[in-house]
C-alpha cells in the first residue's frame, strides 16, 4: 500500500484486496498516516479485486474520521466487482465515487 499527500488530501493506492484478514491493518495504517493537514482521503481502488463486509467496515471507519475533520473519503476508479458491492450495500450514498 502506498500513501502520499496532495494538499489536504491523503492519497492511498496499491490496495490488492480489502478483506477480513487485512482490513484492520489497512484502517490502522491509513489513520496512522493522517496528519493535521489532511481533511480528505482518496482511496484508489483500481487495483482492488476483492472487498468484503469487513473491508467496507474499514472504509466506513475512515469516512467517520474524515467527517470529524469536515472532509470526505473519495473512492477512485473502483474495479467492476468492487463497484458492484458498493452499489449493493448503497455505499455510493456516503462515499464520493470517482471514475476517471
Amino acid at each position, binding site marked *: 500500500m502506498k500513501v502520499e499527500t496532495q494538499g489536504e488530501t491523503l492519497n492511498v493506492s496499491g490496495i490488492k*484486496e480489502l*478483506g*477480513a*484478514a487485512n482490513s484492520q491493518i489497512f484502517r490502522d495504517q491509513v489513520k496512522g498516516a493522517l496528519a493535521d493537514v489532511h481533511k480528505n482521503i482518496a482511496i484508489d481502488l483500481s487495483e482492488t479485486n*476483492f472487498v*468484503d*463486509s*469487513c473491508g*467496507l*467496515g*474499514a472504509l*466506513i*471507519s475512515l469516512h*467517520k474520521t474524515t467527517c470529524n475533520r469536515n472532509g470526505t473519503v473519495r473512492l477512485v476508479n473502483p474495479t467492476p*466487482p468492487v463497484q*458492484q*458491492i458498493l452499489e*449493493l*450495500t*448503497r*455505499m455510493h*450514498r*456516503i462515499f464520493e465515487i470517482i471514475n476517471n
Partner: protein
Amino acid sequence: MSIESIPVSRNTGLRLSLACDLGAVRPMTKLIRDFLQEQGAGKEELQASELALAEACNNAIKYVVAPASQQQIEVEVLCGNEQLELRVNDHTNGFEWPRQVELPDLAAETGRGLFLIQSVMDRVQYFRGSGENCLVMQKKRDGHVAPPNQHSELERRLSESEKIIRDMAEELSFCYESLSAIFRCSAELGKSNDLEDFARRLLGDLAQITSAVVRISQSGPW
C-alpha cells in the same frame, strides 16, 4: 494457516477444510475460484462464490468459541450443469437466520455479511445443529459455457451416441423386415390348407424377388 483439499468426485466437486484463522480464508476462496473456473463458471458466478464463501467463513471464524475453535471449518463445492452449491460447516453456537436480511444503518461498520451472501446467491439455507451448523448457498448457472476440454469430450460422446443410434435403427429395420416376412408367410399359410400350394406360391415370390434383385444389380451402381 492450514487448508486441506479433497476432491469429492472428478470434475464436479471439491471439499476443503481450513483452520479457524482469518488468514486462511482468502487462499481457500482463491482455490475454489480456480476450481470453478476450470468447470467453466462465468465471471459473475466466480465473484459471487468467492464473496459468499469469504463472508460465511469469516463469520464461522469470528464467532467460534474455544474449544470449538480447534476444529476445522469444512467447505464443499458442488458444480452441476444447472447450479453451483456451496456448503460451509462451522462449529459456532449458531444463530437464527433472519426472515428478512436487511442492510444495517449506512454508518454501521459491521453487519453486512449475511446481506451480501443473500444478495449474490439465489438460494440460502441455514441449518443450525448442536455443535455444528451448515450453510448451504446455491447459485443458478445462467449461460454456462463448457471449457474447451469439456467441448471436445462432449463432441466425442455425441458422435458415439449418434453411431449407436444409427446401428440400432439399422438393426430395427432388419427386425422389421424379418417380422413382416413372418407375418406374410403366416397369412399365406392361413389362406390355404394345401401345403404344396403354399410352397409353390412361396417359391414364386422368391423367384420374383430374385429376378428383381438381378435387374437392380444389372442396372449399375446405386
